[in-house]
């Protein structure tokens, strides 16, 4: 076990708005953690800070005992943190196989794929996310659920220790959600530490053993999701003041 990701007093200010306010938490190796909070709570900003796409105003982020605050995104990926995006990103005019190959060609991905070659590793990842029969088509014609899977596949190509999933369920049907859930659970069973966000409580409740709640950039509470859901501030944030009776 041991702490894999340690965030301390992280603050990110935009002019007039504090998106992440003195935020601290830890994620242990092999853990499956959820980050919940209503829309605009600062979850995506927090992810951007951890993965290096934005620089914090103050605070530190340590990964595997190493200070990664303010590092370039590609360096952080090569240390073992891979992320997906809330709005799906893909290489539109390249085949799915090539989409994954790009991750396999990163310095960290190369180490993994050295033995079998880039194409073979990429297709085995496509197999793992269940897209192997679509290897030769470009992502522009894929349905949304498959794009989400592709995102996870792209992250897996870099052989991550820690997987940051930003709203992996948003915009999906129940059927598709189940597919993604199975995939994430399987990855976690294979030993990947998973840290994911979600703004709908129900989705995360059944999935993660531990949830961290965030509201207006601030840390609220953490614990088993049922407990977190009963927290007064969390309820207020989701449903408005005086709503404890309703819940």
């Amino acid at each position, binding site marked *: 076990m041991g702490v894999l990701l340690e965030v301390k007093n992280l603050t990110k200010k935009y002019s007039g708005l504090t998106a992440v306010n003195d935020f601290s938490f830890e994620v242990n190796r092999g853990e499956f953690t959820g980050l919940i909070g209503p829309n605009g709570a600062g979850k995506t900003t927090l992810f951007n800070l951890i993965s290096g*796409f934005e620089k914090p105003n103050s605070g530190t982020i340590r990964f595997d005992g190493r200070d990664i605050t303010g590092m370039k995104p590609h360096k952080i*990926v090569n240390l073992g943190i891979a992320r997906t995006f809330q709005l799906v990103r893909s290489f539109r005019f390249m085949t799915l196989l090539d989409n994954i190959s790009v991750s396999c*060609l990163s310095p960290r991905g190369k180490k993994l794929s050295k033995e079998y070659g880039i194409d073979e590793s990429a297709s085995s990842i496509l197999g793992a996310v269940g897209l192997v029969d679509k290897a030769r088509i470009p992502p522009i014609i894929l349905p949304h659920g498959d794009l989400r899977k592709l995102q996870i596949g792209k992250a897996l190509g*870099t052989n991550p220790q820690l997987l940051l999933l930003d709203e992996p369920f948003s915009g999906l049907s129940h059927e598709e959600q189940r597919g993604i859930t199975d995939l994430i659970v399987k990855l976690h069973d294979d030993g990947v530490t998973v840290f994911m966000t979600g703004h709908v409580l129900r989705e995360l409740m059944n999935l993660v053993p531990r949830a961290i709640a965030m509201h207006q950039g601030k840390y609220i509470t953490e614990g088993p999701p049922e407990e977190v859901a009963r927290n007064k501030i969390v309820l207020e944030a989701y449903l408005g003041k005086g709503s404890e009776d309703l819940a």
Partner: protein
Amino acid sequence: MRLNLKLKVKFKEFPGYLNDWVHTFRGALTVVLLILMFLLPFGNQSPYVLGIFITFMIYTIFAASWDFLAGIVGQVSFGHAMFLGVSGYVTAYLIKYMSLPWWISLLFGAIIAVIFGLIVGVPALRLKGPYLALGTLSMSLIMYQLFLMGSMAIWWEGLFGTQLFGAEGVSGIPRLSPDPMVEYLITFIIMCLSLFVLTHLAKSNLGTIFKAIRDDETGTSASGINTTKYKIIAFMISSFFAGVGGALFVMHFRGVNPGIYQPLYSFYAIIIAALGGLTTISGSALGAFVFIFINEILKFVKDIPLIEHSPIGPLMEPLFIFSIFLILVIRFAEHGLLQPALERFKEVYDIILGR
């Protein structure tokens, strides 16, 4: 290691590999066209005709280098003429004042173009999209003014006793070979090599990373790729081939002057690549062919007395006609001429083979 292995496999299966390729439609067409082009100087030795073909091949290399950078890596440069010019000047200088053989000068010119690409690329590639286009455009204009400056010419002449800067440029360079046929064949080989290397780079693992940068740069860095590094590599590859084109250009026209840095030449590359179809690379050959030959025909048409003195005479300017032509191509064949042309040819090919 892996590349080595791949090459070995390809080499072992080489005859079979070539055989398979020739039997595909594209392979067959390419081989036929290359053989025809190779045989041309044995059939027609008029320096005028060979000269047109040599110009066409030089423009092909130049436009292909632009297409590699813009179509594959997504970095649109509006100042590609600066690589043409830097390499051209170096080549001309080495041949004229150092009396080096042409091929060493060409190699040196291209290498200096690469170094220049590195120096320009590091600051330029911090710019994105239209700003990169503007940045490169202004860099080429700076080069134009720099080489035009009279004070630079005096300074250089005082320092080295040779003429480099200034409006006259460097003139009186011998051609590759006094025999147009030899010049044609050498240019032909260099063009084939350049297109071969560029198309294969685009298909390689490096090309996969380049295309990823074109499609989504943020996403590429999220995949653990150092995008800045690869963009600079791409810039250097592109400037190498633009440099090869520049060296051949200067040798063919037997001199160089600051006019080579004009945006006009950068736009020629863009027009040619767009005519052939972006991202195709070998499409540049078709684009350059159309471009150069329409240019020649227009020159001819312009000189017909009946047209020259008629009201449409002044409208026969090649650039004017080309602008219209390009607009039509973009409107009706947005992927350039190569893809539709290949499709039509393939239909005929299939009919001939009775498929």
